[in-house]
Every structure is written in structure tokens, then in C-alpha cells.
């Protein structure tokens, strides 16, 4: 049985609250797939529908092509890693890991052997007889993963499992999760509100907002070609200048803004005569620059070593964020001064509003 996960038009309504509306996407087998969105966007609801804790009010969940309707969490080929991890505090580490096997009636010797094997996989050999409370945050994290992997799930569902860790450990665990996923070949569906986490780990990312699916794409595509204004603003930083689109030709769009006419790639909904917005990434804005020239008032320059982050405001009030390489810092403006910036058309995207 393959372990692709397909959501076909699923929706969820709690009482009068619409948590998820008409979401359709397909996760390929063996993929590291993230669902990214701000809190309350419905991503946890989607995960719980895949796990089988709740049934969608509309649509279907298919795993390996099989409709999961009516199957409980214990009957689906999924295992979930909870935000709180939910390790059993009164069982030893190895009993925790082997709990799923115990539930399947596997004998004690075999359970112990399997637990040891998984402890090796997560590099916690010799920790089997400890209690979860005696482990550090990162170790507990790994035990939770081993516990889920012990039942050999086809799909691992992770509900923001790194959110409780400090930044350094979180970055380390990202790499570890990614490596573990490649080694086991299990389909990972990962929920997060942290866009850098989603971009760094995933093969593909689904972006959600207010219960609606915004875009499903690779991290690179999401960043370079946001499909909606929400994605453009939510994923990465951006400079957004609103205006009216005057011309769309040859994959490029020309937009008349308060700061003059600018050209970028034509994105979704970009049509001549429409209201639109041009989105320019901070690293695309260069001091000086002849094409697509803009003026802005610089308020603050944060030097970060490789880059200097320039903050300020454009003439129409929109916020300026530019990330200038140190090597070009010679041209960078001083705080309080007016400065000119430019960008290449291929580094900006024009989207229709609405």
C-alpha cells in the first residue's frame, strides 16, 4: 500500500465556526510536506482530520487511495507527534517507545528489542530505563518520534513539535528530522507557523489562511512566485507597493504606483486595468540602481555582518525593508536621509489585489 495522502475538498465546521473550507491537495509518498499558516488558520484541524481524531464535515481523506471515512486513529496508517509530545510520564523510555507494539500484543522480548533498535536510530542508546521526566527537551522530542515510528506508520503527522524548544536546539532538530525522514522514507506531514522552519525542511509547503488553502508549492517557488497577496506577505519579508496595473506583456507587468511606474514579473490575477500590488524582496532592493528606481526615507540601518538591514518608509507610507550586502554598504544611505533604490524586474512580482 502506498502512503500518499489526498485531501479532496475537505471542510470542517465546529458549531457555527468554519475552521476549514474546501481544501484539496495531495501529499506524495515519502514526501516531507509542511502545512504553514498563522495560528487559527485551520492547519491543526487538517492534521487531526488526517489522523482520524475528527471527521471532516465535507470532503474525503484518502491515504494510499483508500477512503479513511469512519476509521479511527488506531485504524489508520498514521502516527501523530503531539505539540506537547504526550509521552507517558509513568512509563520508562523504552515502554513509551514500545507502547504501540504492546497495544498490538507483541511479546515483551520482541518489544524490548524493537525499542533498543529505535533508541539506536535516535542516538539514545542506554536511555531505555530512564523516565521521560529525566530527559532533556531534545531527547524527549526524539523519544516521541521513536514512539511514533515504532508502529511503522506510513505517514507521520507532526503538530508543531519543535515549538517548545529553544532556537538553537530547534535548528538542530530541523536537520535531524529531515535526515530521519530521508532515512525512513516515511511520509511526513508537518504543521508549523514558523515559515523559516517550513522552508528549510520541506519538499513542498501548503500555505493556509483563515481556513482556506492559499498555495501548494516547493519552498523556492513559494518564495519566488507567491500565488496570493497573503503568501507574498506571510512567507519571507517583502516590500509591497500598491497601484494600478497598466500593461501585461511577455510575462512582465507594469504597474503605476505612487512612486512611479514599476515593472515586475506578472503573477496571479495580474491584468491591465486592475488594482494590483508589486512585491519586492528585501534582498532584491539595491542602493542606487537605474532600473525601477524608488526613493525612500531611511530610518534605521542594522548591521548584521554579511548584511545590513535597512528600514524606512516609502513616499506613499509603505514600509521599506532592504537587505544590503556588506560589500555594497559603501553606497548605503545614512539614517534620516532620502535614498534611491532599484531592483531588477525579474526579482519582483506583480499580483492582482483581491
Amino acid at each position, binding site marked *: 500500500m502506498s502512503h500518499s495522502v489526498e485531501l479532496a475538498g475537505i471542510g470542517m465546521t465546529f458549531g457555527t465556526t468554519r475552521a476549514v473550507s474546501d481544501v484539496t491537495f495531495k501529499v506524495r509518498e515519502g514526501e516531507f510536506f509542511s502545512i504553514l499558516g498563522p495560528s487559527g488558520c485551520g492547519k491543526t484541524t487538517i492534521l487531526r482530520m488526517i489522523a482520524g481524531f475528527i471527521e471532516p464535515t465535507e470532503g474525503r481523506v484518502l491515504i494510499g487511495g483508500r477512503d479513511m471515512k469512519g476509521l479511527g486513529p488506531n485504524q489508520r496508517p498514521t502516527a501523530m507527534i503531539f505539540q506537547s509530545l504526550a509521552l507517558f510520564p509513568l512509563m520508562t523510555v523504552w515502554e513509551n517507545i514500545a507502547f504501540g507494539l504492546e*497495544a498490538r500484543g507483541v511479546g515483551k522480548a520482541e518489544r524490548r528489542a524493537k525499542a533498543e533498535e529505535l533508541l539506536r536510530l535516535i542516538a539514545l542508546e542506554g536511555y531505555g530505563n530512564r523516565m521521560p521526566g529525566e530527559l532533556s527537551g531534545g531527547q524527549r522530542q526524539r523519544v516521541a518520534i521513536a514512539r511514533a515510528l515504532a508502529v511503522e506508520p506510513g505517514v507521520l503527522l507532526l503538530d508543531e513539535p519543535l515549538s517548545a524548544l529553544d532556537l538553537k536546539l530547534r535548528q538542530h532538530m530541523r536537520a535531524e528530522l529531515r535526515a530521519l525522514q530521508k532515512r525512513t522514507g516515511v511520509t511526513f506531514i508537518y504543521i508549523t507557523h514558523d515559515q523559516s522552519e517550513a522552508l528549510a525542511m520541506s519538499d513542498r509547503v501548503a500555505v493556509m489562511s483563515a481556513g482556506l488553502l492559499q498555495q501548494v508549492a516547493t519552498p523556492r517557488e513559494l518564495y519566488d512566485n507567491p500565488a496570493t497577496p497573503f503568501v507574498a506577505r506571510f512567507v519571507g519579508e517583502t516590500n509591497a507597493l500598491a497601484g494600478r496595473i497598466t500593461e501585461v506583456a511577455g510575462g512582465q507587468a507594469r504597474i503605476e504606483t505612487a512612486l512611479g511606474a514599476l515593472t515586475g514579473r506578472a503573477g496571479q490575477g495580474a491584468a491591465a486595468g486592475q488594482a494590483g500590488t508589486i512585491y519586492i524582496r528585501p534582498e532584491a532592493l539595491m542602493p542606487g540602481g537605474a532600473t525601477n528606481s524608488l526613493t525612500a526615507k531611511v530610518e534605521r540601518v542594522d548591521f548584521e555582518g554579511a548584511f545590513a538591514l535597512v528600514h524606512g518608509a516609502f513616499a506613499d507610507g509603505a514600509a521599506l525593508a532592504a537587505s544590503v550586502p556588506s560589500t555594497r554598504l559603501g553606497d548605503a544611505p545614512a539614517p534620516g536621509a532620502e535614498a534611491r533604490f532599484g531592483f531588477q524586474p525579474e526579482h519582483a512580482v506583480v499580483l492582482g489585489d483581491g
Partner: protein
Amino acid sequence: MGDLYRRFGPGLSTIFVALVLVWLAGMVLAPNLMMIDYALRPNLPPAAIGGPTDTYSLANIAYLAGEATHRTIFLKTIWASALVALTTFLVCYPIAFWMAQRATVGQLSVVLLLIIIPFFINEVLRTLAWFIILAYRGPLNAVLMNLGIIEAPIRWQGDGGVLAAMVYAYILFMLLPIYNAIESLEKAQIEAARDLGASPWRIHTRVVIPHAKAGIATGFVFTFMLAAGSYVAPALLGAPGSRWFTEIIYNWFFEGGDWNRGAAYALVLLVLCLAVVLVTLKIARVNLADVAK
């Protein structure tokens, strides 16, 4: 103690501490010491008290050991109290679990209210209610006969009636500790166990009950002690064949006129109850401080 003094100052704190000490000495220590004193002396006419025959001995306790009927009633009281505790647990656990993990806030307040309201009424009156319900020509028999379940009325009074009344009377003492314990169990633990394929039975035996162990042990201890020391329920609902040990003690005091023997019997009951409590806590690996919470 230091905290108490810092907060209320020396004058008020000394009064508090003195009041507690007076309470402990007068209401707990003195009666128990007097009971021990009575238990170890023979029952003598007033003229002989303080005389050469008024010596300490274990004769009153030995009398209980030698008296077959009293011994049987004593042992029966112990196991029947354990049965009351177990039955109360079986009734309370599902309710407590539902209240702690499944009920909505609205449902919870309604159910709590329904369970607590009867406790506004005196225990004697609540037992009397059971006396009426279970009477030979009472409503329960009438309903069962009308439904055609039984043909002739059943005499409920006796062991069954005592058990029913006691389970009802002590339900709160079992329910609340278990509810508190289960309430603190994170919902994700149950979901995780379910997700890993555990059956409901395994979820309860491996996850919920171990977590709620302290609460369950507390409930057992409360219920057992209350049942073993109960007088009203066996007196009202018992039959001659279901006498409770407290009734024997009562008889020694108020009918036999032998306070010494009555005190000896009470002492034995107290010691045995304490032993049962300590063993239960030991088995559950709970200490008395947890129970007090």
C-alpha cells in the same frame, strides 16, 4: 510555621497555634487515650474502681477473639467495607472519567450539582430515603412488579440494602478525588495512546488509572473508613443476618453496659482500619501527604 508568624504577627499566630493544639489535644488525643484506658481495664462496679482488681490487661480484646459471633461480624465488616469501597469505585470511575475528560463545562456543572445536592441533607435522612425505597411494600418492589420483572416482592433489607445505601452515601468521597486526578491528565495522552492503537481497556489500565492512582487510593481509604465506621446504614437497612461491627460496639455501651468491652472493640476496629489504610497506601505507593491534598 515561620511563614505564619511573618504573615500574622506573633500575637495572632500564637493564638492560632494554641487553638490548633487545644483542638488536637482535647478532641483527638484525649478521647483516644481514654478509649485505650477503658479498653485495657476490666468492667467493675463503682466501688471496685481503683481497687486491687482494677489492673490493665488484654482481657477485653481476648474476649473478642474468643467470641465466635463477634469475631465473624468483625471480619465480615472488614471485607464488606472493602466491597463497599470497590463497588463505589466501579460506580464512580466511569462518571469521574466522563466528567474529567469528556463533559462540556455546562454538562459538568449540572452533573456536579446533581451529585452534590443530596449531600446537603443529613446522612440519616438520606439513608432513611433508601429505607423507604427498599421497603417490602415500597416503590422499588412496586415498580419491578408492575413491569413484570418480579412476581412477589423481594426483601431488599440485609446485605444488598446496606451495600446500596453505603455506596450512595459515600459516592462523593470516591468521586471527587478520582475526578481531580483524572482532570489533571492531559487529553493528548489519551489521544496518543489511541493513535498508537491501544484499546479503550488498555488506555484506562495503562494510562488513565496509573495517572489517577493517588486519587483512587484516596477514594478507597475514605470510603473504606467511612463504611467500616458506619452505623446508620446497617442499623436501618440491615437484617439480623447482616449485623455490622459498629452495632456490637453500640450494644456494649448502651445495652450491655460494659463500656470497657465496647472501648476494646472500638480500639480493635480503629487499629485494623489504620492497618488497612496503610497497606492500601503502600500498595498504591501513595503517601499520607498526597491523600491529605
